[in-house]
């Protein structure tokens, strides 16, 4: 197992190199940088700008810049953010946590909702329950995350049950420990629900069709023929085999979660990675865009790796080698 993980990590290196080249190329192709905007400000002397340019090595040829940036990444030094005036790595570390909380919470909700829904719509195939569940999953697959977020905010603003954005209230620092925890959870509920809702549909559909397929397998009939009670047949014999293919889907899910999370973060003013990259793009914050692009990629690749490892744990038939 360790061998397999190590090999997978090793295979990631060329891919990540490719991503660094891509993100560097994007930033080099962009017209101007933060300094050209600075130059428009008459209060900043041209000498100051020249000084900053030299300080950040922006006067050197692109391959030198790329090489320095690459070496920096290996030491978890993503460069310096011009707008925030702090190291990019500090910003990213701060934001990644928020994105992870949002995505993991959402994944948890969609799995918790999708598994029973999928199982019961397979058991009650072609009944009214099945049709309602299938309509529900079709809707969640089709509604764009930013529109659902807007609807969520609309409900929050009308009822006043939830905050309409941000990660903490304005008076956060004056709260005690439980108050802080409650405040964070309170802000988390709506974005997590929105994102979890989005992810539910495809899981329900997949779970339903897997379950229907496994239900017709001879070993399910054998289990029944042995006289096992129905709930044991369903939950001990059919369910584990029907769940396995879903774990491979986890990888895809992480990709769509991260993209969906970016838009949800932006609408909910949630201080995550997706919102960070939008702000960076808007202000031509070169190293910040590259850093967040790179970090987003790492999250996605790690997600895929974790889903493969999970699958190997859950399904003894799969041999990693």
């Amino acid at each position, binding site marked *: 197992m360790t061998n397999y993980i190590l090999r997978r990590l090793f295979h990631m290196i*060329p891919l990540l190199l*490719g991503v660094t080249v891509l993100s560097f190329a994007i930033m080099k192709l962009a017209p101007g940088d933060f300094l050209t905007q600075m130059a428009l400000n008459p209060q900043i002397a041209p000498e100051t700008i020249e000084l900053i340019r030299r300080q950040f090595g922006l006067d050197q040829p692109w391959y030198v810049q790329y090489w320095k940036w690459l070496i920096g990444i290996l030491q978890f030094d993503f460069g310096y953010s011009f707008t925030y005036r702090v190291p990019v790595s500090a910003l990213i570390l701060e934001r990644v946590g928020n994105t992870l909380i949002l995505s993991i919470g959402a994944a948890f909700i969609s799995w918790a909702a999708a598994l029973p829904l999928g199982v019961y719509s397979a058991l009650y195939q072609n009944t009214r329950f099945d049709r309602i569940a299938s309509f529900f999953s*079709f809707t969640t697959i089709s509604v*764009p995350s*930013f*529109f659902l977020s807007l609807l969520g905010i609309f409900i929050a603003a009308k009822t006043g049950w939830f905050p309409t954005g941000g990660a903490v209230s304005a008076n956060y620092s004056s709260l005690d420990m439980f108050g802080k925890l409650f405040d964070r959870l309170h802000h988390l509920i709506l974005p997590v629900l929105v994102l979890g809702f989005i992810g539910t549909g*495809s899981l329900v559909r997949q779970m339903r069709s897997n379950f229907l397929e496994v239900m017709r397998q001879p070993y399910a009939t054998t289990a029944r023929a042995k006289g096992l009670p129905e709930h044991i047949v369903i939950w001990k014999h059919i369910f584990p085999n029907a769940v396995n293919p879903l774990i491979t889907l986890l990888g895809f899910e992480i990709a769509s979660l*991260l*993209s969906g999370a970016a838009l949800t973060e932006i609408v909910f003013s949630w201080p995550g990675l997706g919102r960070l990259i939008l702000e960076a*793009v808007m202000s031509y914050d070169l190293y910040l865009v590259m850093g967040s692009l790179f970090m987003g990629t790492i999250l996605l690749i790690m997600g895929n790796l974790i889903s493969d490892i999970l699958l190997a744990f859950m399904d003894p038939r799969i041999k990693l080698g």
Partner: protein
Amino acid sequence: MAQKSNFRIIINRLRQNKRAWFAMWIIVALAFFALLADFISPYHYDEQNRTKSYHPPTAIHFVDAEGRFHLRPFVYNYSLVDPVFKRYEPDTKKIYPIYFFVKGDGRLRLFGTDEPSRLFLLGSDLHGRDLFTRLLYGGRISLSISLLGVFVSFILGLLMGGIAGYFGGKIDNILMRLGEVIMAVPGIYLLLALRAIFPVTLSSAQVYLLIILIMSFIGWAGLARVIRGMVLSIKEYDFVTAAKAIGSGHMRVIVRHILPNTLSYTIIAMTLSVPGYIIGEAALSFLSLGIQEPYPSWGNMLSAAQSIRVLTNAPWILIPGIFISITIICFNLLGDGLRDAFDPKATGGVEIK
């Protein structure tokens, strides 16, 4: 018995799937409305009315304040009673009948009413522009951009996948690694970063082409991978050897003999990938990095909803989102139906988003 063409068989199977058939007609209707926006919409998409900012949907009446019935539907003129919360009240003294096939600034319109009253079927926006009108014109932009985006990225994906699978070796390696790099970055992140290459302020025509370009750059990779796999097995068939034997060039073999065999997969995948492009365009325009004012798109019409005050006082500005969702639902249903029609034995679902 006459031999039915493949196409007819597919259409017949699709017709039996009521949901997919219905979804197809909704898509056709939406496209039809968008195409005929000049005729159906009562106003020009940028016709402003400063006195009717965030005007609620106009109620259409048949019975007036004195209880008299009118065969011709009519509306009342609304006046602003609360400028802070944008509250409007109808003035029931004077009725404004709705006329059909009226002439307005030089063109025929389906319906309209007399000034100073306005007929806002779905309310108005900040500048007092008719939301229904902008929805129709916006549909033109949003639908065409996503269909063109799908088209361009599928041509790219088919060619890249075809070339990679057919030639193999180094070309295959380079193309597939490139695709893997593109697929390794979360979609929205890449979309935003690629948009950053170009200046924020571009003309609308440029942005239109740019969005198609960016989305195709991201979209070809996934398709090319699958097509490559199919080409690997198709190129071993005798008919490919035969085509080569009679002296067809490589590109001709790929385009004329190999790729047509991936047609059924391509049609299904194209239909199922339209939603992604609709969301991509809407998201960019929503973040004001896409289609710019005064031109409407379903995405940039939703931007106004980012203000909580506007959202609570004028909830009708969320309507474009409902249209985005309906369109996506229909493309998903149609794609599912097509898959069943092409392969009745297949079960289960393919991932969409």
